[in-house]
């Protein structure tokens, strides 16, 4: 078991392994997203209340889900990196942050566009989910800004890891407080919890989108981690050999 972990943590081995996994993740994720998009747009019946506008759910929910998943991945990786001083874990945390920020942005943008026909405004402060997403975006931006502000690589890894962990403790508290805050004036929400059960024709494309997006996120994450590993190991012999080989191929 331990030898497996040690091997996994060794940069050249991980680099090769990640390269093998990326096409698989893409091969699973792309068809799922293609099916979900097609079925979500054309097969699923329009919602009895929101009409066709509810179809935005097929991009909004996966984006919101991944924005939180990416934060979890980032915080767990940061914790592992901080405790066991594992460089690879820091590379994962550093790679997850910009992806998470993109998905958070996407969740905000699609939520706002969805809100326009539903509420008549581009932004509704009363919706607790959107407000939480906005704060999550600020957390991502703070993490990335701190990382960018520290020149020394190891120090940047460890300092930003502390911030990621502090943020991870705060995320549920932020979520709870925003829920409480919006519950005071019964704001309108896009998605109600415990609402009417969603029919199969509507649900399957959504599940396909969520899983498909997750696999695409995995592929993107591994692509980014590969570059991070290369950069961190830029003085190692195997990286130099790789760089010369790729120069010949290009």
């Amino acid at each position, binding site marked *: 078991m331990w030898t497996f972990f040690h091997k996994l943590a060794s940069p050249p081995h991980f680099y090769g392994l990640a390269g093998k996994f990326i096409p698989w993740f893409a091969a699973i994720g792309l068809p799922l997203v293609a099916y979900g998009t097609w079925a979500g747009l054309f097969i699923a019946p329009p919602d009895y209340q929101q009409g066709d506008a509810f179809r935005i759910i097929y991009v909004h929910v996966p984006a919101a889900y991944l924005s939180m998943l990416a934060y979890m991945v980032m915080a767990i990786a940061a914790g592992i990196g901080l405790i066991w001083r594992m460089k690879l874990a820091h590379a994962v945390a550093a790679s997850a942050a910009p992806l998470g920020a993109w998905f958070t942005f996407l969740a905000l943008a699609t939520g706002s566009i969805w809100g326009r026909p539903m509420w008549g405004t581009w932004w509704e402060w009363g919706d607790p989910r959107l407000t939480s997403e906005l704060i999550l975006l600020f957390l991502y931006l703070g993490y990335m800004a701190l990382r960018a502000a520290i020149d020394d690589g190891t120090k940047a890894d460890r300092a930003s890891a502390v911030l990621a962990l502090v943020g991870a403790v705060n995320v549920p508290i932020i979520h*709870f407080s925003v829920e409480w805050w919006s519950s005071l004036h019964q704001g309108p929400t896009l998605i109600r919890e415990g609402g009417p059960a969603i029919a199969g024709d509507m649900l399957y494309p959504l599940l396909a989108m969520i899983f498909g997006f997750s696999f695409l996120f995995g592929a993107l994450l591994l692509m980014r981690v590969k570059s991070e590993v290369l950069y961190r190991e830029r003085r190692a012999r195997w990286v130099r050999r790789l760089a010369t080989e790729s120069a010949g191929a290009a």
Partner: protein
Amino acid sequence: MTTLPDTMPGLGRGFVALLRRDLLLAWRRPGDVLNPLVFFAIVATLFPLALGPETDLLRTIGPGVVWVAALLAALLSLNGLFLADHEDGSLEQLLLSAQPLPLLVLAKTCAHWLLSGLPLVVISPLIGLSYDLPADGLLALPATLLPGTASLSLVGATGAALTVGLSRGNALLGLLVLPLAMPILIFGARTVSLAAAGDTMAGGVYFLGAYCMLALTLAPFATAAALRISNE
């Protein structure tokens, strides 16, 4: 290690010594203490000037304005929490000390709160009065600001420790600390609003107290870890 050497001072003494030192330093330079307080009062003055003197409006925005002003004043003073010690090298002495670093960090945080947080708590009813808040609201202001500013000092200390050696740490600190401080702001400001409207303030004050306790147990460790990393 079964017995401590006689020369090693107890845990409480290290804490008290550092707290006394920070308070004494501030006593000799009173400007540092007054600045956040004056800043707090000025920010609270900006809003009536910008929005107009209608009493109804001021009564509605009062709780939020006082809380935002307190948040910004805390942020302003946080930047200097470790800066002077970092510049004159005494921070490194603290890191090398045999005393547990989280405890020393807690002493510095306590000093920071006594110097920048507590004065805000004390004068907050005056600001509330100028916004024509009813008596319940005036009472709720210090009641929420007391645990609130303490939490801000504790969480903010982690941010200050992360940015201490950085050239552009000043602007970065706000970016790191403000999102984390949002639950405090939400509960603080809303509780005062509710109290001013005649509602009970117990729920919000309990939440802030619980948050403060959580911050008290976790933040000193995070701050200590961050200080060690910043000074590696």
